[in-house]
């Protein structure tokens, strides 16, 4: 049981730091949050810089174009990029963090060759078409239908809450290929080009006012059968792989960001005199414990994954549950600190507070995560 990095890992950290120090100043200015094409270009530009420097797909397997880095190196990467104030994955989120890894582990050689390099090079953006109006938590209730037509599937239905749909090139799409099978069995996982005829994207405004996600309507969209990842009607299993990546690793880097914000809150409190308020001060102290522990839990989970070499397990749900709530408490504390200014949308913390509200919903609600912990980790009987 240790927390020390090996000399190779420290060397990796040092070289990354050095690279970040000279690379970040050359980034173009950050586009505004409503400027979708601008955000896409910015995020892809950053990905391209990572690619050129050899940091793209760090944690992906080598035969998928990645660097095959150890989970610890990936952790160091997340820690250092965040500390240096590097951009987030942003529009590359789905491609890099779950569609990519899913194709890497479940796709054919041709599929890997077709889809993975453009994600790594920062050329193509993916989105996730899982949820439907009638299938959110109960994802397997999805109804978007795919009929086989020669070498194509013809797909009709609709998806909702699709993040980045407006600027995506590809969509990891779940469709029902056998409506007569039990609901978990008749599903397939397809890669859908977002410029195919029959797709309509209608942006949805979030409570923060911006259009982060969209509705996607599919009207007889033709998708080649060759775009199916995994066997026909075996999509649920493939989806479980995707979701374990989403829950297992996707939020990890953000813990570092929250720790930084917490430090900023403390300094702000000292500046504006609120540090004398023992209740607030102790609340910040407790949040410090919370985020320190979440970082330790991350290190624990990463070390476990490093030992087994496997896909992150249901333990990701434990992390996601605690983290999503802690993040909301963090921004509630920020609001407490800001006082009347907490109602000013011009304050970053106010916008971040609004966006933190999605963390207990997106990628599986807290209630669903608790079902998973109870049934899959604790082995309690299947719930009512």
């Amino acid at each position: 049981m240790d927390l020390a990095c090996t000399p190779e890992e420290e060397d990796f950290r040092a070289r990354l730091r050095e690279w970040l120090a000279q690379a970040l100043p050359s980034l173009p200015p950050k586009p505004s949050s409503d400027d979708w094409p601008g955000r896409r270009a910015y995020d892809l530009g950053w990905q391209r810089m990572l690619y050129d420097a050899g940091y793209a797909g760090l944690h992906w397997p080598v035969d998928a174009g990645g660097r095959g880095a150890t989970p610890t190196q990936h952790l160091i990467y997340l820690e250092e990029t965040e500390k240096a104030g590097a951009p987030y994955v942003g529009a590359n989120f789905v491609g890099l963090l779950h569609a990519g890894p899913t194709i890497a582990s479940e796709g054919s050689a041709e599929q890997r060759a077709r889809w993975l390099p453009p994600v790594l090079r920062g050329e193509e953006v993916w989105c996730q078409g899982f949820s439907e109006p009638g299938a959110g938590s109960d994802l397997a209730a999805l109804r978007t239908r795919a009929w086989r037509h020669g070498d194509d599937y013809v797909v009709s239905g609709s998806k909702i809450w699709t993040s980045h749909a407006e600027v995506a090139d590809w969509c990891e799409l779940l469709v029902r290929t056998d409506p007569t099978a039990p609901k978990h069995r008749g599903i397939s996982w397809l890669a859908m080009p977002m410029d195919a005829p029959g797709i309509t994207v209608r942006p949805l405004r979030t409570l923060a006012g911006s259009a982060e996600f969209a509705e996607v309507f599919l009207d007889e969209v033709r998708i080649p059968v060759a775009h199916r990842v995994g066997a026909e009607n075996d999509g649920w299993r493939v989806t479980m792989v995707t979701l374990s990546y989403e829950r297992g690793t996707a939020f990890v880097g953000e813990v570092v960001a929250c720790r930084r914000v917490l430090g900023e809150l403390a300094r702000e409190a000292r500046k504006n005199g609120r540090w004398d308020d023992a209740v607030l001060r102790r609340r910040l102290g407790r949040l410090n414990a919370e985020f320190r522990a979440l970082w330790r839990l991350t290190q624990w989970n990463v070390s476990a994954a490093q030992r087994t070499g496997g896909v992150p397990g249901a333990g990701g749900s434990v992390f996601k549950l605690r983290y999503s709530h802690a993040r909301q408490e963090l921004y509630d504390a920020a609001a407490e600190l800001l006082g009347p200014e907490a109602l000013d949308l011009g304050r970053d913390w106010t916008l971040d507070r609004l966006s933190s509200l999605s963390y207990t919903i997106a990628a599986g609600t807290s209630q669903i995560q608790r079902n998973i912990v109870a049934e899959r980790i604790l082995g309690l009987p299947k719930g009512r």
Partner: protein
Amino acid sequence: MDFQLTDDQEALKAGVRELLTARFGHAELRAAADGGPPALDRALWRELGEAGFFALRLPEADGGVGLGLPEAVLAFEEAGRVLLPGPLIATHLAAGVVDGAATGEAVVAAVDGVHVEWLDQADAVRGDAAGAQPLRSVDPLTPLHRVPAAGVPLEADPEAVLLTSLLTAAEQLGGAARTCELAVQHARARKQFGQPIGAFQAVQHLCARMLVRVEVARAAVYAAAVTADPADVAAARLLADEAAVRGARDCLQVHGGMGFTWESDVHLHLKRAWIRTQRAGGTTECEEMLADDLLAGAG
């Protein structure tokens, strides 16, 4: 970085668990809880000494086992699991300082803030216990004395305070993990409305919350054992205290009326968890320390 138990650490943990299950199982726990005024089992104390429980961190040159804080934390986690009674931490910290502590020949109590656990049964007391008055302890397995508040300042020995806090967190972790197990066992076995209560989502979610608290606390406690950093220890302590106290309460809830009886072990866990929260500076001190740490980190 390999932040997982080593094979040796797994073996040590299993070994301590085996010893404690054999020597302080459920029957012994109940006998101690139900048998009137608590008395220390001196034979068990010496056996713990022989097994190296108290001398675990004492250098081999001084007759100790020569292991480190992580190993001590694993041993104390196991002690916490079974609610092993006695001034375990005080005696462990006295190994090499007070004669007989390392071997379990001597029972050593310590003044901690205004409290002393097990004063009457101790062969030696560290700190100034002058004027100590017995109080009716909430925990039937932890006799308590109060010393006049002016007695001993808590920060008399910062090292002892830090270690007491960390080892207390380890005990809390063990207790929290145990109450989670007890709740899950009960939820699987007890039937209502024609099915195990564990199939009801309300019960499932209570149990899931317990596990989340345990796992977060575990990572924090083990990390603090590795770094011995005061802020890590304070964080570990806050989360372990929370996991133990809330875990015991949720466990009681899952047990229903049964949980409110003396026969059930649940109250023993809750009461011990309460006692432990008072040691070596409690919640307030930890929170204040971690608040200061935020500013210190800002440089």
